């Protein structure tokens, strides 16, 4: 119960920060719509459905990367990790709270992006939407862990894509192929690993 309360307090803080600053979600929306527009004019008419799905997943992954880059900005610029790690909450609650917030940003961006994709390219069926929802879980879980790792390092703008993009390849493969079981398995394994290892990411050095 206490764990859930801490997680919610931390996630609520991130949602409130975004509501005030309006920096992450507008950038994500602008990016994904711009990407679809460019793809629409760059790809010849009559491109197959599978190719179109590939474009969708490429745009989703890079949009998520944009959001993840900003996920720990407040903690980095205002030194907030120091205050958070001294608090008596479980450190994994910091990760989970941030993951919930990232998931909300991704979902909000996709509420606009998926209908836009249908207009630009091809309609989406329930299986693809389910795949996107499952992929969001994996992206948020893994990306938040790597976001925290990148904050601790020096070349943080370079570090996050280097860590995150290779790990996103299975998500793209599962997403384009709409292998829901594969995406669910990815989520379960990597969410568990990220949850268990976050403690060591923010451990004293």
């Amino acid at each position, binding site marked *: 119960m206490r764990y859930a*309360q*801490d997680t919610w*307090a*931390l996630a609520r*803080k991130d949602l*409130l*920060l975004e509501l*005030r*600053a309006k920096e992450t979600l507008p950038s994500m929306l602008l990016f994904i719509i711009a990407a679809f527009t460019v793809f629409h004019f760059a790809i010849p008419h009559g491109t197959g459905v599978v190719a179109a799905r590939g474009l969708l997943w490429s745009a989703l992954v890079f949009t998520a990367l944009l959001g993840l880059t900003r996920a720990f900005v*407040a903690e980095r610029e*205002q*030194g*907030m990790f*120091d*205050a*958070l*790690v*001294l*608090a*008596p*909450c479980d450190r994994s609650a910091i990760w989970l709270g941030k993951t919930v917030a990232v998931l909300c940003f991704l979902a909000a961006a996709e509420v606009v992006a998926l209908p836009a994709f249908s207009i630009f390219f091809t309609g989406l069926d329930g299986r693809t939407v389910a795949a996107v929802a499952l992929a969001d879980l994996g992206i948020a879980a893994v990306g938040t862990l790597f976001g925290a790792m990148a904050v601790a390092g020096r070349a943080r703008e370079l570090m996050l894509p280097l860590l995150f993009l290779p790990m996103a390849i299975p998500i793209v493969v599962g997403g384009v192929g709409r292998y829901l079981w594969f995406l669910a398995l990815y989520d379960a394994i990597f969410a568990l690993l990220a949850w268990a290892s976050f403690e060591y990411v923010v451990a*004293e*050095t």
Partner: protein
Amino acid sequence: MIAARALSKRYGDRRVFRDVSVELEAGGLLLVTGANGSGKTTLLRILARLAAPSTGTLELPARETIGYLGHEPLVYRELTALENLTLFARLYRVERERVGMLLERFGLWDVRNQRVSTYSRGMQQRLGLCRTLLHDPALLVLDEPANALDAPGLELLDGVFAEGRTTIVATHEPERVEPFATRRLAFA
């Protein structure tokens, strides 16, 4: 009781300090002075359990009973003072009444619903002190706590020192802290 024996800290090839030993009795105040880059902040981060020493032994209170104020006030700038303290009150399981009491004590009650980004640096420092004291810590670790404080703010800080809490302070202006100090550590 705080005890640190033969501490040293290295970052790669760079040695920050070596062979530093500190003892501080309960209720005492350790004044840490030294030039820029001498290792004061690194020592304070180690004593606040935010960093690990390269070598040496430590006897410190539990992490959650430490109140730490660094060079930054460690508050979210896009949240209000009330939202910041309410967040940490939830994490520390502190009654909300204490939030109001601290905001009043540090002269921030009337601006509690303003975003911290609209505060002056001195007001942010006062809020940082509120956050540091929120959970009634057994050990206070303060790095340049007088930063940007005006005369009334400095008096409030004196009040914190006079409470008799176990405190470690690093400062470039030792005259203010000296009357409260029970131990001293000077970095070369």
